[in-house]
């Protein structure tokens, strides 16, 4: 299997910008709309990599994760067949993609969800799905 290189970071997914957009979206319906828009900006994982091997179990929707250590920085692809989940994965991506192993280990994703007012809205199964993904990323570095 060929490896994938790190895709360029779209400006919309730059963490500070993204934080602002999600914080600005008031109410769950607007947050969901924003997540669907973010999903469009997140590069898709090529079909060839959307295999059972790369699936994260325990999520309601199907979620794929591909990681690679590229010169001390983590290369990260996340994808889902659900747009809303993919929007949340955009947040994961902006928080972790291209970071060093130390940064990956130290980033507090739960705190980010809290800050953006998302933890209040997300169901516990969705939260546990997200933390399964974060754990998988942290195991990869």
């Amino acid at each position, binding site marked *: 299997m060929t490896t994938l290189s790190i895709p360029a970071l779209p400006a919309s997914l730059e963490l500070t910008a993204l934080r602002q957009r999600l914080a600005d979206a008031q109410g769950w*319906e607007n947050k*969901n709309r924003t997540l669907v828009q973010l999903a469009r900006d997140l590069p898709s994982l090529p079909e060839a990599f959307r295999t059972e091997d790369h699936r994260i179990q325990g999520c309601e929707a199907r979620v794929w994760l591909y990681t690679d250590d590229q010169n001390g920085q983590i290369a990260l692809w996340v994808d889902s067949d659900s747009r809303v*989940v993919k929007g949340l994965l955009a947040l994961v991506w902006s928080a972790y993609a291209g970071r060093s192993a130390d940064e990956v280990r130290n980033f507090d994703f739960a705190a980010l969800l809290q800050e953006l007012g998302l933890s209040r809205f997300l169901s516990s199964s969705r939260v546990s799905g997200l933390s399964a993904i974060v754990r998988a990323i942290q195991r990869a570095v």
Partner: protein
Amino acid sequence: MSVWSAAQPRACFPLLTQQSELIWLDSAATTQKPLAVLDAERAFYEQINANVHRGAHRLGHAATEAFEAARSSVAHFINSPSRQQVVFTRGATEAINLVAHSWGGSQLQAGDEILISMLEHHADIVPWQMLAARTGAMVKPIPLTDALELDLDALAAMLSPRTRLVCVTAMSNVLGTRPPLSRIIAMAHAVGARVLVDAAQALAHDVIDVQALDADFLVFSAHKVFGPTGIGALWARMELLEAMPPWQGGGEMIARVSFDGTTYAPPPLRFEAGTPAFAQAVGFAAALNWLQQQDRSAIAAHETALYQQLAAGIAHIDGVHILGAPHDKGPIASLAFATAHPYDVAQFLDNADIAVRVGNHCAEPLMQALQQHGTLRVSIAAYNSAHDITRLLAVLAETLELLA
């Protein structure tokens, strides 16, 4: 036939009146409860509460009478020849497990066959798989036609003297399909097989008459018929119950106990080990009584009209269709999407206060047959209105545009 207006029944349901914006289209998962049910259970706790079948005091007698009267209400609702044929369980699932362990465990052996419709809920599959693993009996799925009806020709070909049991739902919880029960039962009886009917979904919509059906076993859950959680029932032919060994042991189900040997009570108590869910039995009876006081054929016509409104509306929205078009079906629709993920759709419906269910609906084999990862299920009950469907269709169309 009189016309049913959903405004009046909705007013009977405290949750629906308190959350006036809520559109509950997830009744196949669990129904909301009319005030009459909540009041009956509460009144029981506040006025009668005592353990049953053992009272040496007036509350004990009153509790026993209320519990046994609840059994009579259930028996009456399904036209059971006697109330002794109604065994209270936690729900449809436990009822099927009871049949599998007691009847199946004592009657089936290696080589025997259990035919299970491809429409079944896991509750009507997994207990039989577990029984098969214990006894060496074989479980065989009855396939579907392209219209997603049970394939009766295939069933005819599968039935043989080895067939001991046919398991079939009275209404599919995913598609709404109503298999032709009377025909299936006659076909099974012709080879000497027994038939278990899963009436969990049908009971809230259809008039079920165990004698007219000529069924052998029938199961259901109160919480899907406007009743409380924690209770349901097994109905069975008396001669089957009488021959069945107990499954769970404990108080209530025994005649005599000693360390030298124990003898068991006759049915139904033989199958009700331990303190039963007696307060819930009272609530269950209140639910059935509430339903019986309504004009049931008007409700059925109302539900059918809503279903037709839904089907007509879906036909006008791009990127979504209803799975299957069986000849006879209840007010349940599974929606499949061209590109949208059902979870995303449900998420936006939820934002608009419309509750539906997504997933495999505890019917993975059916999902595999349908080649679906999951569907979005809309299930209609007596308290839904044309407004509910109109609003669902509008939000659905908008959501699919957003997700396109």
